[in-house]
């Protein structure tokens, strides 16, 4: 018998929390993006785990769509970062103070 799904959910929760803390702590926008990827992976892991626990393929389909959305998000986000770097000469969150209104 393989590992119970609860353990995977625990790992998923820990991974999501680490990603959330990193998103709050770090200043570099690139590292913040990586932390968002960590959180997305945690959610993917939870989806696959539930797909196995409930024996339902829909969980894996959702993971497939999350992968596509993550790829699109990274492309646009990195484009924004490059654009910001051109005008601000820096990629920390402090360089985005022009957005504060």
């Amino acid at each position, binding site marked *: 018998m393989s590992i119970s799904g609860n353990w*995977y959910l625990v790992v998923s929760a820990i991974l999501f929390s680490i990603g959330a803390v990193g998103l709050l702590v770090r200043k570099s926008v690139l*590292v913040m993006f*990586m932390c968002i990827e960590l959180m997305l*992976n945690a959610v993917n*892991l939870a989806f696959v785990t539930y797909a196995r626990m409930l024996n339902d393929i829909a969980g894996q389909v959702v993971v497939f769509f999350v992968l*596509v959305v993550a790829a699109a998000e990274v492309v646009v986000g990195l*484009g924004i970062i*490059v654009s910001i770097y051109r005008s601000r*000469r820096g990629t920390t969150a402090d360089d985005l103070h*022009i957005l504060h209104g």
Partner: protein
Amino acid sequence: MITMLANVTVPDATVFVIASLIIIGGALGVVLNRNPVHGALCLVATLFGVALTFLEQNADFLAAVQVIVYGGAIVVLFLFVIMLLGVDKSEGLGKEPLKLQRFLAVIVGCGLLATILILAHINWATGATSASGPVSSTTTPNINLLANSIFTSYLLPFEATAALLVIAVVGAVVLARRRTVVVSDSFESPSDSQDVIHDPDGDSGASDSGQDEESGVSDSASGTSDDGHPQIDRLFEGNEEPQDTEEEESLT
């Protein structure tokens, strides 16, 4: 805890423990590394660990896609941008202006973890299984089941992702394109505009943020009011010049 591990075979437990260690160690490396390049490499480790858990849970196709798309495309894109911008120097957790923020972030993270674990312990799953087909069967491999589900039940979301990818590509091209100055016939010389920009810098000893905004506003205002020539993209282009001069002034 002991009962949950009672029936587990040794290889399964070993794979799970190794995958978990890789995942959590890689995630901590992403958060704690000063160098973004090392962080990206730790992210690769985490992604491989997640792919390992996918493999162990009957998600063969997703494990392959995880390695190819995440580890092969997204992380390489990250590394491209890191090295293209040259921000791979050590700027990390050492200098943090907000002292309280890190403490609060750790508290929020622990609260989040506790909330997730409590909610997972309540077990909201209804137990209604196989709404859209089983994950694995003895006759059909996982990839066939996944493809059947994607191309029949979830065909419309699949086509929507195609539109999403096209929009993302167009957006990336628009964002990465170097902006050209769109001016029709007569163009204000750069020296004039720089004089106008330098005025608020010399007068006011405001902070960086104030200077940037003031210079941008005065630039656009001078472009329209003084000469009467509408300048469309000067506002964005003008942001580069005062930034450089300010850096030089701060250095000297």
